[in-house]
Every structure is written in C-alpha cells, then in structure tokens.
C-alpha cells in the first residue's frame, strides 16, 4: 500500500511538472529542483486531494516542500 502511494504521487508530479518519474526521489524539492511556483503547488495539492480523496489544509500544504514530505503527508492522512 505504501509503495502504491509513492508510485501514484510520483507519477502525478511527473505529469504535472513534465519531468521523468525516474528523476524524482524523496529529496526532490518542489521549488529548487522542479521550479514550481505557487500556482503549480496549488494545482498539485488539488490533484493530490482528488487522487487520494482527502483534504489538505493551506497550512499543511505550505509545509510540503519535498516529494518525500508529500508522500509522508498522504500516508499519514490515510491511516
């Protein structure tokens, strides 16, 4: 289940940011590595909410800076 979340998150990010999924790791930083802007992040959060049927508050969303943090957040919300 955990790896399933990881795969789905990475494939979502890869599609949204138009990058190769193989280049995305837990340490990949949205702003520094993927050049995300605030609109990208807002869209990504909505995508994650829809994909995993959960709600991410603005406060929580602001704490998500890396791919690993996004995966962790979703895994924790699903428990």
């Amino acid at each position, binding site marked *: 289940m955990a790896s399933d979340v990881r795969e789905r998150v990475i494939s979502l990010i890869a599609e949204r940011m138009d990058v190769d999924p193989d280049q995305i790791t837990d340490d990949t930083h949205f702003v520094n590595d993927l050049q995300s*802007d605030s*609109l990208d992040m807002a*869209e990504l959060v*909505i995508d994650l909410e829809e994909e995993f049927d959960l709600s991410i508050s603005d406060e929580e969303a602001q704490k998500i800076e890396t791919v690993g943090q996004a995966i962790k957040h979703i895994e924790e919300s699903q428990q």
Partner: protein
Amino acid sequence: MSTLQGKTALVTGASRGIGRAIALRLARDGANIAGLDIKDDLLEETGALVREQGVEFLPITADVTDFDNMKAAVGQFTEAFDSLDIMVNNAGITRDNLLIRMSDEDWRAVISVNLTGVFNGIKAVARPMMRQRSGRIVNIASVVGMVGNAGQANYSASKGGVIALTKTAARELAGRGINVNAVAPGFIRTAMTDELSEEARESALGQIPFARFGEAQDVAAAVAFLAGPDSSYLTGQVIRVDGGMVM
C-alpha cells in the same frame, strides 16, 4: 469570417439580452457554445438561434452563486467538448433603489449573482484552462462600476468588484496562458434598461456623446474581440462600450 472555428465557449446568463447576443456572436464566429442560465425556459430559444449558425449548443441549467453548481456545469461542458477555450461571465441582475432605501436582501442578492457569480465562474474554469495552458475569460462589468450611479449602490459595487477581480485573475493566470479581461457596457437596450423611467432615460441620453443607447450586439462584438486571436496580448483590461459616456 470564422475566427473562433473549432473553439468552445461557455456563456453564463445566456437566456436573453446581452448573454444571448454574446452566444450568437461567438457562434457566428464559429465557436461551439454552452449556454448557462438559472432557468431553462428561454435557454432553448438561444439554443435554436445558436444552432442556426451551424455550431453545437449545450444548454446547462446552473446557479452561478453556487460554486458546486458551477463546478458541475464545467464538468458537463468538458464531457461534451474537448476543450474549454472561452468563458464569458455575463449573468447579472439589478435591484435598484436609493442607498438609504436599499434592503439588505437586495444588496446581497446583487452582490451574490454579479460578483460572487463571476468569482465562481473563474474558479470553476481556471483548472481546466490551466491544464490546457490557454484560455480566454471575459467578464461583463459596467461603466457604473467605474463612475457610480445613483440608485445602484449594489449594482455599481458589484461591477466595480468585477473590474478588480478581472485584474487580479489576469495577474494570477497570465503565467498559464490565460487572458482575463472585462467589457464595461454603458446603457444598452435590453429588458434591464427597458424598465427605466422616461426621466431616467432622458437623463442617461444626456450623458452619452452618441445620444443613443447601445445594442447588445455592440457588447458582443467587444467580447468576440477579447475571445479571439487578435487580442492575445491584452489582459487585465476593461473595454468600455458606452457611446463615449465614460472617458
């Protein structure tokens, strides 16, 4: 001339008046049209006229004041058409009265449809347009939103709000290839202005250099320009269609 050939447009308040004229003009320019209105009784009349232009017409019944309604409406749209190229936020109402006589209910009703309705419309189409990396949003404001009008505290405030909202949305969405502009009509001959008293009509005409009311088609022509390929470098702008009333 089919400048919008193969494009698709969602027009709110499409049952009559300026909304119908906009739907017809965009259809004439080649766009497939979804006409949205809160009641469906007159929507089919617009639909029949749109289809005469040889394009598709999708009627959608929805309330612009309700975001979930608008989200569902956009869902219907994207199911029927491949892309969402043009959004025209036109739905509007008036509940005129002098400020000191205006009820809380009349204030809220007008702000809710005219301003919150545009916010909901923009928010509902922003995501599909962002995904496409393209889109045109045209909001119908009013010159009274720029200069005020006695007896229209609610209406003028709502339209002034639409102008500010247009500029903010233009700034936020420019990075995704989405143009957001407004058209501000002056006095246009519609059911809304037919209700004016003779005195109000005379006084209005006195302020218009062209000394006549505009037609819904005049507004639709400005919308067609903002929805078409010739305005790709315009965003956050307000085009006044008012016979020179406000300069």
